[in-house]
C-alpha cells in the first residue's frame, strides 16, 4: 500500500476531492497546512511598513491506495489540482507497512 500526500491550493480542494471520489477512493484526510516552495510567499504593507509573508496557506490531503492504483490516483490529483500557475503544490507517495481498520480489526487492503 501507498500513502499519497498532496499539498495543494486551498481553493482546489473541492475539485480534487470530487475527482478522487469519481475515481473510487474510499476515504481521505484533509488538514490545513502552511509553507512555501518556489512561490516564496508574498508581501503585505501595513501603514507603509512592508511585511514579507513567506509561509502561505495550503491544504494537505492524504490518501491511502493499493499499489496498483498509485500512478492513476497521483495522476487524478495532479490533473485536478493544476492551475498552471506558480504555487500549485506537490504530490508524493510513500510505502505503508500496515493499515488496520479500528472498528473491525481488518488489515491490509481490506482496511482501505
Amino acid at each position, binding site marked *: 500500500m501507498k500513502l499519497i500526500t498532496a499539498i495543494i491550493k486551498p481553493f482546489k480542494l473541492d475539485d480534487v476531492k470530487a475527482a478522487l471520489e469519481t475515481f473510487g477512493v474510499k476515504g481521505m484526510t484533509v488538514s490545513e497546512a502552511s509553507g512555501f516552495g518556489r512561490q516564496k510567499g508574498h508581501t503585505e*504593507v501595513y*501603514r*507603509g*511598513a*512592508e*511585511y514579507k*509573508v513567506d509561509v502561505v496557506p495550503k491544504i494537505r490531503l492524504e490518501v491511502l491506495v493499493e499499489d496498483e492504483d498509485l500512478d492513476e490516483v497521483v495522476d487524478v490529483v495532479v490533473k485536478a489540482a493544476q492551475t498552471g500557475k506558480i504555487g500549485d503544490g506537490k504530490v508524493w507517495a510513500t510505502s505503508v507497512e500496515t493499515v488496520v481498520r479500528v472498528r473491525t480489526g481488518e488489515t491490509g487492503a481490506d482496511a482501505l
Partner: protein
Amino acid sequence: MEIDSGNTAWILTSAALVLLMTPGLAFFYGGMSRAKSVLNMMMMSFVSMSIVSMVWVLWGYSVAFGEGGVPAFFGGLDALGLVGLEAEGEGYPSLAFVAFQATFAIITVALISGAVADRTKFMTWCVFVPLWLTLVYLPICHWVWHAEGWIFKLGAIDFAGGTVVHINAGCAALALALVLGRRKGWPKEPMRPHNLPFVLLGAGLLWFGWFGFNGGSALAANESAALAFVNTLVATGAAGFAWIMVEKLRDGAATTLGIASGIVAGLVAITPAAASMTPLGALVLGLVAGAVCAVAVGLKYRLGYDDSLDVVGVHLVGGIIGALAIGVFGSLAGTVPAASLLSDGSAVLLGKQAAAIGATMAYSFIVTFILGKVLDMTMGFRVDEEAEATGIDIAEHAESAYDLNTSSTGGLGGPTAAPIAGDIKKVEADA
C-alpha cells in the same frame, strides 16, 4: 441663566456619544494588535472608563474646572466629590457638563495605551491612569478650557481638544513608548494587525462618537454645533481619502488600515478647528492631515521608537496640524472666528497656537516621562520576556481572545472544563 432643555439634551447626548468612542478605540487598537494581546489592548481602554469615571467625580472635575486653586494652572478642591457644585451652568445643569467632560478625560488616557501594546503590566497601567490624569490631564485641561487658565487667557483656540486631548495624549504616548522600550523582535519581526474588520469597526464608532466630541463642544444646540458637525464630516472624509491615495502612489495599494487611520487623523486635525473653519477650509485641512499623517507614521522606523499603534504619528502630528491650521487658514466666518494669516494677514494667532502646542508638548512629555520612570522603578511597567512571548492576554488576564484549537468542538490541547470544586458539588447536589 435659565436652563435650556434643547442645549441640555444635546450635551447629555454628546456625552453618551463621546463615551462610545472609548469602546470604539478599543476595537480600533485591538484589531491592530496581535491575536495574543488583543484582550489586554482592549482592557486598557475599558479600565480607563472604570477608573477615570471614579476619579472625575472624586477630584478630577474639581481640579480641572473648579474655582480657587492656582487659577492660571489648576482648580481648587471646592467641588470635591461634586459636593457643593453649583446647580446651573450656562444654560444647562452643571452635572451635564461634568458628564460631558468626564468622557473626554476617559478617552485621552485610553489613547496613550496604543503606544505600549503587547508589553504593559496591567496593574501598573491601573496606577498610571489616575496619576497621569491628575498630574497631566487635569492641569492642561484647566489651562486651555477654564476661563482663568493661562492658555485660555492667551487667546489660543482649541475648540474640542486638539491640545488637551490629542497633542497631550500623543506626547504622553511617546514618553511611555520610550520608558517601556521596544517590543522584543521589533521592528524585524512582523507585528501585523490581526483583525482589520475590528479596526474599521473601531474607526466607524470613533467617527460616530466624534460628532458628540466636536458638535457637543459648542455646549449648546446651535449654529456652532452644526458647523462643527459638518466640518467633522468633511474633514474626516477628506483625510481618509488622502491617506489611501498616498498609499496607492507610494505602496501600490489602497488599504483598509489606511482609510481607517486617515479617518482618525482627520478627526484629530479638525478637533481644535471645528468651529473656526468653513466647510471648505475643513476639507482642505482633512486632505493635508490625511496625507501628512500617512507619511508621519513611518517616522518611528527612522527614529527607532516602538510607538506600537502610531499614537504619535496620528494624534500628535494630526493634533499639531489642526492647531496650526487655525492660525494659517482659519476663518473669521467661523462661530469661533480665527484671525489667521489668510483671513486677517496677521501671524499673532498662529504664534499663540504655537505657544499652546509647545507648552502642552513640553509639559506632557516631561511629566509623563518622569511618572513612567518612577512607576517602572517601583512597580515595573513591563511584563517579563516570557509573558511577552507567550502573549500578554494569558499572562496578565488568564484569558485568550480566540479558541484557536479548533478541532470543531473542544479543541486539541485547549482548555478542559474545570469548574471550581464548590460548583461541582452544587451541580452534583442539583442532579
